[in-house]
C-alpha cells in the first residue's frame, strides 16, 4: 500500500467553513503542482455558509494516481470542534499540526503519532490588527508551517501569491509575512523536513488543475451551445457560472456589444427543462445543469423531449440522495434514473465522464449525439468530478471541428421535397428529418406529446403509435456505435477476474488494479463510458468468470443496469459499493477485491 514517503502522502486540513481557508488550501495544492509533482485535491464541505466543519484533502502522488488513498498522514487540525475526529483519522506514524495558542494536552494521547503545536493565532495577533485579516493570515501561517514540514519551495508560494494579488501589491507582502511566521516557527522548533516530504519533479508539464464543471462549461461554449437555462442547485451551479463567465468573455459581439447567447435563471427545474426544450425545438443548442432533485422535477419534460425527438443536453452533477440527502457529498446515485428518466417506455443516451478533460470532450459530444439522434442526452458527472480540481492534460481544441447538427432540412431541401413528414424514417436509419420553425410552410409540423404518427398527426391507432415507439427504440440502440467506447486495461497475463466501473470510480479502480497486479492478483478492468452499452461490454463480462462492479451507491445501480441491458448472468457480477458520500479510495476497492480473490484461492 501507498505512503507515506517521498512525494507520496496525504495532508488533510480541517477548518471551519466561511473562514477563508479555501484559498490557503488551494495555494498549498497549487504550489505542489507547480513543483512538478502530481497532486489530487478533495474538498469535503458542509451544506452551510458559515461555521460548520470542512476538510480539504491533498494527496501528493509522485506516481500520478488520481484518486484518494484512504489514509491521512498529516492532519492540519484548525477546527477545535473536530480535534478528536481528526486525531482518530490519522494513520500510525502520522503528524498532527494544531494551533497551540490554546494548548491541548489531550491531543498527546496517541503515542503513535507526532503532535506539532504552532501558536498560529498568537503570532498573527501580534502582527495583524484587523480581526478578519487575522483569521485570513492565520490560514496563511498554517500554509507556511506545512511548507516547512514537507519542504514546499517558498519561492513557488510567493509567485502564486504574487499572481493572485497582482492588482493589490500591498497584500502580497502581508500574506508572505504570515506564511513566514508559520514557516520560521516550525523551522526553529522542529526537525524539518519530515520523513515524508515533497521533492521537485517534472511531471506536471502540459497539465492543468481544473474542475469538471469548469471544463464542461467550456465544452458547452466550444460545442456552440447558445442557450442555457438552470435553477441553482449544488453541485451543478458552477457549471453555469463557468458558462456565463466564458460567454461574457468569448461570445459578445465585438462592435455591437450584444450577446450571442441567452442564459435564463429559471423559476424551477420544470421551467429550466421547458426553456431548453423550447429553444432546442427552435434550433439552438441548449442545455441545463442540474442534480438529482432537478432531474426528478424535469422528468415529465424529459419524456416529452424523448417522444417528440428534441435534442437537448442535461448535465446531472450527482450528489448524495435520496431527497436532499447530503447535498455537498458525492455519489453515483442517478445511474438508473438517467438511463430511463420519465414515465412510459423511455431510454436515453447517457455519457459517463471520469475526469475534467473528458468533461470537456463529452460536453461537446453530448450536443453532437443529441442532435444526431434527436433525443435528450444526459451527461452524468458528480460533485467529486464537478467541484474538485483534477490534474489532467491541458484541454485542446481542433479548429476543424464542425458540429453535427443532424438531419435538419433547409428551405432548399424542402423545395425539392414532394412533402415533409417529421417522423418518417426516410433513410432507414431510424432517424427522421426535422425542420426549424420559420423556414418554409412546407416544413411546418405540429409537435405533440400525445400519440402521433409518422406524419406528426394525432393518432390513437395502436399500430401507428407502435411504429413510432419501436423506431425510437431502434434509434436508441443504433446509438451504441456512436457513443464513446469503453476503455479496457488488461492485466499482463490472463485472469478470470474482471472489474467494471464508470465515472469517478475510475481513479480508485485503476489504482487498485495496478496495485493488485503488483501483488500477484491480476484483474482486467473496463471503464464503461456510455449508455446504451456497446457490444464490448457484454463481451467483457462473457470473457471473465467473475466481474466486480465498482460504484458509489447503495443499490448497485450500474450492476443492475448491466443485468437489464446485457445477457450477463447475475451470479457473475459482484457488487463493490461505496456510498458514504466521500469520494471512493483505492484501499476500499483493493480490500473488497482481495477478500474475494483470496477466499477463492483458499477454497
Amino acid at each position: 500500500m501507498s505512503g507515506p514517503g517521498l512525494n507520496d502522502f496525504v495532508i488533510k486540513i480541517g477548518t471551519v467553513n466561511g473562514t477563508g481557508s479555501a484559498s490557503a488550501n488551494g495555494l498549498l495544492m497549487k504550489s505542489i503542482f507547480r513543483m512538478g509533482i502530481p497532486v489530487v485535491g478533495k474538498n469535503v464541505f458542509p451544506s452551510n455558509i458559515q461555521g460548520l466543519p470542512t476538510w480539504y484533502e491533498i494527496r501528493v502522488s509522485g506516481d500520478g494516481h488520481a484518486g484518494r488513498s484512504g489514509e491521512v498522514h498529516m492532519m492540519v487540525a484548525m477546527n477545535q470542534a473536530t480535534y478528536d475526529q481528526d486525531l482518530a483519522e490519522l494513520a500510525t506514524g502520522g503528524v498532527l499540526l494544531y494551533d497551540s495558542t490554546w494548548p491541548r494536552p489531550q491531543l498527546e494521547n496517541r503515542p503513535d503519532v507526532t503532535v506539532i503545536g504552532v501558536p498560529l493565532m498568537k503570532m498573527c495577533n501580534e502582527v495583524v490588527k484587523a480581526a478578519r485579516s487575522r483569521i485570513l493570515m492565520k490560514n496563511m501561517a498554517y500554509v507556511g508551517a506545512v511548507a516547512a514540514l514537507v519542504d514546499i519551495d517558498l519561492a513557488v508560494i510567493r509567485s502564486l501569491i504574487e499572481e493572485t494579488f497582482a492588482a493589490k501589491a500591498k497584500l502580497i507582502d502581508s500574506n508572505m509575512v504570515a506564511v513566514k511566521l508559520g514557516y520560521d516557527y516550525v523551522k526553529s522548533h522542529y526537525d524539518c523536513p519530515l520523513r515524508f516530504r515533497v521533492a521537485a519533479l517534472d511531471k506536471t508539464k502540459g497539465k492543468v488543475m481544473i474542475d469538471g464543471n469548469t471544463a464542461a462549461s467550456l465544452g458547452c461554449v466550444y460545442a456552440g451551445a447558445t442557450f442555457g437555462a438552470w435553477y441553482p442547485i449544488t453541485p451543478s451551479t458552477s457549471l453555469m457560472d463557468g458558462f456565463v463567465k466564458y460567454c461574457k468573455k468569448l461570445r459578445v459581439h465585438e462592435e455591437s456589444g450584444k450577446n450571442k447567447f441567452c442564459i435564463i435563471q429559471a423559476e424551477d427545474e420544470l421551467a429550466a427543462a421547458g426553456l431548453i426544450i423550447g429553444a432546442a425545438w427552435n434550433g439552438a443548442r441548449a442545455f441545463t445543469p442540474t442534480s438529482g432533485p432537478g432531474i426528478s422535477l424535469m422528468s415529465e419534460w424529459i419524456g416529452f423531449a424523448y417522444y417528440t425527438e428534441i435534442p437537448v443536453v442535461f448535465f446531472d452533477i450527482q450528489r448524495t440522495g435520496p431527497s436532499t440527502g447530503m447535498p455537498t457529498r458525492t455519489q453515483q446515485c442517478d445511474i438508473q434514473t438517467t438511463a430511463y428518466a420519465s414515465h412510459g417506455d423511455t431510454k436515453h443516451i447517457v455519457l459517463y465522464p471520469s475526469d475534467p478533460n473528458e468533461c470537456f470532450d463529452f460536453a461537446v459530444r453530448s450536443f453532437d449525439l443529441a442532435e444526431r439522434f434527436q433525443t435528450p442526452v444526459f451527461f452524468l458527472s458528480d460533485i467529486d468530478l464537478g467541484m474538485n480540481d483534477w490534474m489532467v492534460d491541458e484541454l485542446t481544441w481542433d479548429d476543424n471541428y464542425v458540429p453535427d447538427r443532424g438531419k435538419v432540412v433547409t428551405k432548399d431541401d424542402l423545395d425539392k421535397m414532394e412533402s415533409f413528414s417529421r417522423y418518417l424514417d426516410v433513410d432507414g436509419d431510424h432517424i427522421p428529418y426535422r425542420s426549424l420553425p420559420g423556414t418554409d410552410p412546407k416544413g411546418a409540423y405540429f409537435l405533440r406529446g400525445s400519440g402521433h404518427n409518422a406524419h406528426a398527426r394525432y393518432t390513437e391507432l395502436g399500430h401507428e403509435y407502435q411504429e413510432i415507439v419501436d423506431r425510437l427504440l431502434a434509434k436508441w440502440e443504433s446509438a451504441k456505435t456512436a457513443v464513446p467506447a469503453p476503455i479496457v486495461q488488461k492485466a499482463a497475463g490472463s485472469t478470470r477476474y474482471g472489474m467494471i466501473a464508470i465515472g469517478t470510480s475510475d481513479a480508485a479502480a485503476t489504482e487498485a488494479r495496478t496495485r493488485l497486479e503488483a501483488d500477484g492478483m491480476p484483474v482486467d478492468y473496463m471503464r464503461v463510458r456510455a449508455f446504451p452499452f456497446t457490444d464490448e461490454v457484454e463481451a467483457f463480462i462473457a470473457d471473465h468468470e467473475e466481474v466486480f462492479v465498482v460504484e458509489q451507491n447503495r443499490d448497485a445501480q450500474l450492476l443492475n443496469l448491466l443485468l437489464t441491458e446485457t445477457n450477463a448472468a447475475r451470479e457473475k457480477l459482484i457488487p463493490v459499493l461505496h456510498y458514504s458520500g466521500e469520494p471512493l479510495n483505492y484501499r476500499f476497492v483493493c480490500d473488497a477485491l482481495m477478500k474475494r480473490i483470496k477466499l477463492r484461492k483458499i477454497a
Partner: protein
Amino acid sequence: MTSFLKPKIRRHNEPLNELGLARVDYEGNMSTLCAGCGHDSVTAAIVRAFYELSIPPHRALKISGIGCSSKTTSYFMNDSHGANTVHGRMPSFATGALSANNDLPTIGISGDGDSLSIGLGQMAHAMRRNVNMLYMLENNGVYGLTKGQFSASADLGSLPKKGDPNEFPAIDPVAFALSVGATFIARSFSGDRKQLVSLIKAGLKHKGFAIIDVISPCVSFNDHKGSTKSYAHTYEFYSKAVHADYIAPSQEIVAAYDEGEVMPVELHDGGYIQLRKLDADYDPTDRGAAFNRVMDSERKNEILTGLLFIDEKQPDLHETQNMEARPLNEIPYTELNPGADALSALQAEFR
C-alpha cells in the same frame, strides 16, 4: 382516430390579404371540441386576426399546454410550427423558443386550469420576464378535458352541474397579471368576436407579454344556471371599458371620437394601438388605477372587458438579455467557436 385535415376550399372572389392569402390559408385541422364550445370561437378570432395582420403563417409560432383549450393550436394555421407541450408548462417552452428566434410572432394558448393551478408559476415568470408573446387564457372556470372539476378561476359560490358550490375565491388572471408585471392586459369574451379580434391583433403587435383573459364557456360542464362562466351569465354582466384598435404604420389615426375618449399608444413597429375609452375616467396606462378599477368592478359583479392595461415602454426579454437582433439559431458556428488559441490562453489560470 387520427386528426382530420380540413380541406382547403378557396371560394371565388374570396378577399385576400396583403400577402395574397385568404382566410382559409390561416385555418387548421377540424376541431374535435364539443359543438358550441367557446374555444372554437376564440380559434376563429385568432384566424381572423392573423389573416388581417397579414402575418405569413410559417413565420408564426403557436404553443400550448394541455386541456381542451390547449388542443386548439392544431385548429388554426396548419402552415405554422405548433407545439402542444405539457400541462401548465407552455410558458417555459415558449420562452425558450422565442429566445432562439425572437423574429417569430408567437401565440400561446392555455386554459384556466393550465394557467392558474399547475401553471401559475410559469405564467407569472413569463409575465415578469416580459416575454414577447400573446398569451390567450381561455377561461371557462372548469377543467374541461378531465370532465368538469372546478378550476381556480371559478367564482366563490358558483354552482357546478351537480354537487356543492365552489368554496374558494377565484384567482382573477387580470388582477394577477397587473400585480406581476404583464405589459398588455386585456379581458374579452368568446361571444364578442369583434372585440376579441381587435384585442388579438393589438396583443400580437405589442412588444412584450400580452395576455387576454377570454371568458370561453364550456357547454358540456359549466354552462348551466348558477354558473358564473356560462354564456348567459357573461352576456348579462358584460361591461366594456376600453376598446383597442391596431393601426398599422401605413394607416392614419382617425379622430372620429370625442376628445378625451381616444388615446393613441405608439408601438415598436411604428403603428399605434388606438384606445377608445367607453368609460372616460379609465386610464389604461396607469397600473394602480387599472387595478382599483378591476377590483371595483369585481365587487359589482361586472365582467370588465377591453384593453385594461398597456405599457409599451418596458424592455422585453430579448432586450433585457442584451441579445443580438440576429436569431441565435442563425448565428453560424464559425462565430461561436472561440478557437484553439483562446482555449490554450484561458487555461493559464489552471496551471
